[in-house]
């Protein structure tokens, strides 16, 4: 098991290095315009966000809609930290110092978002279904409104009741090369998390929370854990976003943003990280690619969504994961290790109210 996994890890990283190599070549030779680089940056941020939302919405099966709020916490935290470090002249300078400052701040943003994830998750996850959707949406909005009014984040103070200024002057020290690896490491960590006892427990809870309790799982603990991990990576995405965009306004972390990422999860497949990656790339790039159709592009975006949902209700990949190793094996005509694994997309029957009466 370990050997096999090691092999595919190595293969995956070889592929990633090749992709990274291509990226470097394209950037250094000037083939990629700043505009395209910007799109790539947005893709990386969306990938982290979509995967993080997939943990709660897909794997845990709880419709939580506050993702952008936690992204906001990460963004503002990271921005304040790099600002503070800059004014104290710590780790300032092109290249390594700036990058290190960016990484430290982003990590801190993730940690603070995770802490808020615990605080919000404990009360919110007592609810489920549409109730959970509404309460997380509410928490997301609370976060946004609080940020909007905090004076040190550019707000006018709570007594004013109207939106203040954006937080400006954030060092734009998110380098595409670095962000690429931040994205890779984030996705890899979410993958190892899901493929561990923690992930199994989370998927088991989605299938049947009563059976999960009856198997000795502390359902509340795992739900809050999933929500926390998800919030952490949303915070990381926020940290990256802040140092790419350079100025923050609370309005960009509203519920519409949260919905956008949940759409990516649904589009790619609830319970497939590779699905989320593909969805994040296509749904971030699609509106840009369709720019020449100007006003019609959002229409095209919606149509694309509807087509996928009609013909593939479980999303592009369902719960299937694309594996480079498996692809290579197939190309070389090797047998797959688990041949008799029957792939079936079983929609875990949603626990209806009746279902709660334990028989």
């Amino acid at each position, binding site marked *: *098991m*370990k050997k096999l*996994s090691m092999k595919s890890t190595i293969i995956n990283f070889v592929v990633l290095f090749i992709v990274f190599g291509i990226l470097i070549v394209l950037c250094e030779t000037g083939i990629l315009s700043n505009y395209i680089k910007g799109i790539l940056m947005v893709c990386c941020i969306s990938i982290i966000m979509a995967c993080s939302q997939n943990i709660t919405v897909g794997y845990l099966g709880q419709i939580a809609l506050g993702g952008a709020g936690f992204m906001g916490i990460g963004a503002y935290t990271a921005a304040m930290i790099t600002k503070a470090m800059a004014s104290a002249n710590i780790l300032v300078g092109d290249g390594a110092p700036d990058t290190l400052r960016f990484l430290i701040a982003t990590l801190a943003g993730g940690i603070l978002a995770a802490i808020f994830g615990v605080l919000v998750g404990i009360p919110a996850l007592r609810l489920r279904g549409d109730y959970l959707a509404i309460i997380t949406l509410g928490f997301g909005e609370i976060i946004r409104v609080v940020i909007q009014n905090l004076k040190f984040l550019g707000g006018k103070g709570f007594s004013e009741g109207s939106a203040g200024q954006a937080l400006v002057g954030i060092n734009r020290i998110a380098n595409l090369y670095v962000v690429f690896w931040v994205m890779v490491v984030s996705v890899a*960590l979410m993958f*190892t*998390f899901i493929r*561990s*006892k*923690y992930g*199994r*427990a989370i*998927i*088991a809870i*989605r*299938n*049947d929370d*009563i*059976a*999960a*309790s*009856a*198997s*000795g*799982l*502390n*359902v509340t603990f795992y739900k809050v*854990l999933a929500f926390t991990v998800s919030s952490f990576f949303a915070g990381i995405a926020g940290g990256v976003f802040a140092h790419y965009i350079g100025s923050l306004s609370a309005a960009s972390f509203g519920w519409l943003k949260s919905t956008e990422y949940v759409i990516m999860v649904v589009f790619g497949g609830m319970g497939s990280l590779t699905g989320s990656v593909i969805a994040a790339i296509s749904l971030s790039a699609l509106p840009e690619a369709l720019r020449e159709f100007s006003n019609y592009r959002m229409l095209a975006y919606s149509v694309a969504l509807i087509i996928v949902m009609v013909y593939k209700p479980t999303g592009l990949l369902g*719960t299937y994961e694309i594996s480079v190793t498996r692809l290579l094996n197939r190309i070389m005509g090797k047998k797959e290790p*688990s041949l*008799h*694994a*029957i*792939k*079936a*997309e*079983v*929609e*875990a*029957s949603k626990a209806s109210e*009746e279902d709660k009466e*334990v*028989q």
Partner: protein
Amino acid sequence: MNTPVLEAKHLGIAFGGLKAVDDFNITINEGELVGLIGPNGAGKTTVFNLLTGVYQPTEGAFFLNGDKMNGKKMHEVVRAGIARTFQNIRLFKSMTVLENVMVAFEMNYKYKLADAFFRAPRYWKDEEEIKEKAIDLLRIFNLESKADYIANNLPYGQQRKLEIARALATGMKLLLLDEPAAGMNPTETAELLSCINVIRERFGIAILLIEHDMSLVMKICERIVVIDYGVTIARGLPKEIAENPKVIAAYLGADDEMDVEDDTKEGA
């Protein structure tokens, strides 16, 4: 004398005005197999729900190896040592057979969150070990060749067996089986019977069995408790129960009704 594995004293619960279970008493010793029977709606499943922390008793108490279990949540009861199966099978349908069992080894994992994220040696060691343990368990039920199947794709009889295997993975001292033979054909029932015997030999655990198939109950149970409308109407050896007029009356009186209710349950 040893403390019994399970001791329930005056256990009762009321749903609104309805006393679903009233003054339920039972003592189960190590290695014993006790049957719990009664017509449909008698309150058997409710007894299981009380014993596993799904419901909190409104009266009485129950003890596992002498420790009071009242007020514990479901997973705490399981960790203390009471595992169960469900009348309507509850598997992790989208997961593989192997994963279903591995999940229930919850208490055997030693690795922590950081080990999982960074795949530390402890992660590999535990995963490997528990996978082997799970396959050992599946072997008892002749399911090891189906380890990679999605649980929902198993035939009904095997799903029942998988649910028992999953319960065993929790490392319990007392196993509660809620109508394990329901919906099984005679071959599957016979197979189940031999599985139960193997489990008892291998693990020496105590079992409390709810079963409608009277011939099965009479064959394997050492003692039987009969409840009707939540009240215990008889207890004793299988032979005594079979001849008890109260039991016969309860079953005969409820017989037609029983079939009707069974049908509605299937349809639901």
